[in-house]
């Protein structure tokens, strides 16, 4: 049992030094993640969490195991304070401290016992259990809806930003064009002002 406890303690330690990162672009590979996070410390392991939901367009999610928990904490706090770009912009990635349930190779919790039973249809709890099942379905639908909503919001924001970016780009292009072809200088001379560039 001691070994199990030791294993569990080791696992808890591992969780502490793991960072959960989402909002990742599909282009982000393990190598990219490693390079990006090596700025904060040494990356031990990178694992992408597979997406088993019915939605395909979810941003990717990864678990990054750092050398120690201090580095992990640093990543979480810094990424919380500053937007961090990975393989594209302007959507920043998001970092969180990992939770136990996020890791798939977790050991058993020592000393825990699981009980179960089958219920007869006559059993008074049967109805409740049935309702619980229905609620499960309902909650699943709710979560899915929320998720879809979130994706829609993200898309909307991206769309907006794309428009903004284009407009800004156009503006800067215009300014640059004016400066390049000498119009700005001519205008400055015409109105007896100092040219922008000079």
């Amino acid at each position, binding site marked *: 049992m001691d070994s199990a406890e030791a294993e569990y303690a080791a696992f808890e330690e591992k969780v502490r030094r793991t960072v959960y990162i989402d909002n990742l672009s599909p282009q982000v590979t393990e190598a990219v993640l490693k390079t990006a996070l090596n700025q904060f410390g040494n990356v031990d392991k990178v694992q992408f969490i597979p997406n088993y939901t019915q939605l395909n367009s979810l941003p990717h999610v990864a678990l990054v195991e750092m050398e120690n928990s201090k580095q992990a904490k640093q990543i979480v706090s810094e990424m919380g304070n500053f937007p961090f770009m990975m393989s594209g912009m*302007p959507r920043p990635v998001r970092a969180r401290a990992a939770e136990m349930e996020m890791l798939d190779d977790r050991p058993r919790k020592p000393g825990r016992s699981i009980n179960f039973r089958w219920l007869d249809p006559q059993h008074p709890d049967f109805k409740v259990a049935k309702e619980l099942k229905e609620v*499960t379905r309902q909650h699943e639908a709710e979560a899915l809806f929320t998720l879809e909503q979130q994706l829609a*919001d993200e898309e909307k924001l991206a769309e907006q930003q794309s428009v903004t970016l284009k407009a800004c780009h156009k503006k800067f292009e215009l300014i640059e064009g004016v400066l390049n072809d000498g119009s700005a200088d001519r205008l400055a001379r015409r109105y007896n002002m100092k040219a922008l560039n000079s």
Partner: protein
Amino acid sequence: MHCPLPFPTVPPISHVFSISNHHIAPTHPLSFRTPHRPGRYASRSTLLTRPPSRSARLSVDPSHSATLAVGTPLGRRLLLGHSYAHHSIYYDNTSPSEQSPLILNKVSYGTGFRRKGGHVTKDSEMITKGYKQQEKHKNKVVKDITNKVLTSQRFHAMSRPGEATVEENVEENIEFSWGHKKGIGGPNKDVQFYESFKYDGVEYFLYDCVYIWGENMPNPSIGKVIRMCETGRHKKFVKIVWFFQPIEIQHWLQDVVPFKNEIFLASGEGKGLFNLNPPEAIVGKCNVVCTSKDNRNPQASEEELLMADYIFYRTFDVGSCTISHSFVDVIAGINVKHFFNKEKGQKLITMEHGANLNEKSRCSSSFLKVEGVTAVRNPVKDGKTDISAKPAAAKVSAELKIPAAMRNPVKDERTDISAKPAAKASAELKIPAASLSKQSRFRDENIVARPKTFIGKVGAGDAQVADKAEMKYSDNLSTTNLSDIRPLKKRKVQCIVGLKDDPAKLSDTLPRLPDIRVKSVDAVDPVIKNSELSKGVNFHEKARKISDTSVAQHEQDKGIKTDSQILEVTRKPGEDTSKWFKQQPWEERMQRAYEKGTLVFLENLDPSYTSSEVEDLVWHAFKANVNAKMVQCSSFSSPHYGQAIVIFKSKECSRTCSYRIKQEMPNAHKRKVVDNHLAVVGRKGSPKKPSDQTRFVGHLIIGKFKFYKQREEMKNAVSTSHYSQPNTIEYDMALKWRVLQAKSNLWWDALNEQQAKEIEDLRSQLNMSHDE
């Protein structure tokens, strides 16, 4: 096809030449294989580059020595030696058309193998396909063989340059250590015997059953280690007595229909009985359980049977090529008790019934349960095996009489009711109901039928039991027990009564039968369901008492509290810790399971369960050995619901289980409830393969408006990761994303909170507790 362990489908790459000191007529029924270490690192690519291999057989004059070269993927050569004639069996897949679809060729080899730099010595002879090479061909043959070995090594070298060099004393870097010493023997007193050895982290003891993988074998061979020794020249050997798989001896099976996972112990004198192998040839432990009724055999418990990869209760005499139920006292110089189940594996239940068995003609329910088939086979003193039943409530006593044909199983192979449900096992079911003077007899062929055919026929209420039996079948074919089948029989009786025989006679009995059935179907939990079934339906008071106590013991064994109806999940037994059978990547297995329809998606678990705990849970709830994986949580998964993907071994099994937990199914009366008061939801799994066509919004590129220079910069920007600077547009936009992310956090929190409340409300309505 039930495969006990997830073997890679690809046979290992290796080349074996066995050298023999016997010349064997090619018509001899058995062939002998040289088992060897499967290629641990054999990959598909190396296999593809490999030419179709033939098994080469060499015959060595006993007065001469020869080198046995075994090329493994690592380029290792194993040299066997020392004065044992040893044999093994294998299929020669190169000659499918020459004799029969399955051709067994014989190779045996022995005496004084010596190593000579990878070359077969000049004195060796070679026989291929029964053709004995003449003296004048010898040198050529030797050259051929050498070339062959070298060729194969060249192939290895191509695919795996680092590992393919042949060197003296090349050893794999897999740890090997001997255990306790046992004694010294051999002609020169230079052979050290051992009681155990440890290889690749697995400790093998004497009389363990192991898998040994031969070349081109679809399945590994199974054998029992009866000796472990190291010679004076530091060559390690294990002596293996073989088990035959039915397909290997199908020529001699004749009308014997073996169980699906039945194997036959080699016995008698002759080739194929045992073999010497290097310990490295062992690929893993195999769980073989002896179900023989022999009183020297400690009976196996039901749990052991469920966990068994293979069972055996018959022997195959390699000399006379006959199958026998009896075990001779000595097999290959080893007392037969070592071939039976190990003493320590005995469970209370089996000991008790082992004892009962000899004294009583009546078999207790749990004995039948455990030993279903073999119990029936037991010759009883009055020449009859009466299994009587007396359900307390309905007061109908049904008596199953097993007639003479079944009583003498040693002579008659058809005693296995459960093995051949469709066979003409001549069991008769008598229903001498207390209220009825008349008895109806049904031929067993009417009564016993394959459970699968039942599914369609039986009524809604029966599906449970039928499913269960079906599950049993797929799970544990060999041990399908009488007590499981019996309810089916009853129902069948009930079904056919209207059509056959005289319905009037039974009209009184009939209404009661469903009662019995319903009662047994509603047995509280699946674990004791079996015993309840047999207890409730089939047995006399006397037998009941026995079974009651044994059930209690049984449950004590498993740590299950039946009185509270809440079952505790303990570890499932027999977890294989061997690293030999490297699992394929989960994604691949999942995809395959999905195609086979054996994927089940379990929801509503406690999110903190681990994958192995889910496996245990399924094992206890459904008696099914599965592979499970918890779905990893992410920021958009619910914190209340743990999900697990479960791969069942067979489709029937997964269907049964998902039916049983699926509320939509009209037949499913049971629901699994876990202690955290969540009803587990199961549904057929349909993995969405993470498609490559994922859309990811939010990364903007200015595209064609950019100047070249800018484009270059953008390219760089894409490939690097950075914090955005507060004086850029990027920063502004990033902050907007941040706001959105914060918002999403809020709404997920709100949703989860609300859901938690709803769940809590419902759970508080559940009035079950642990001490209920």
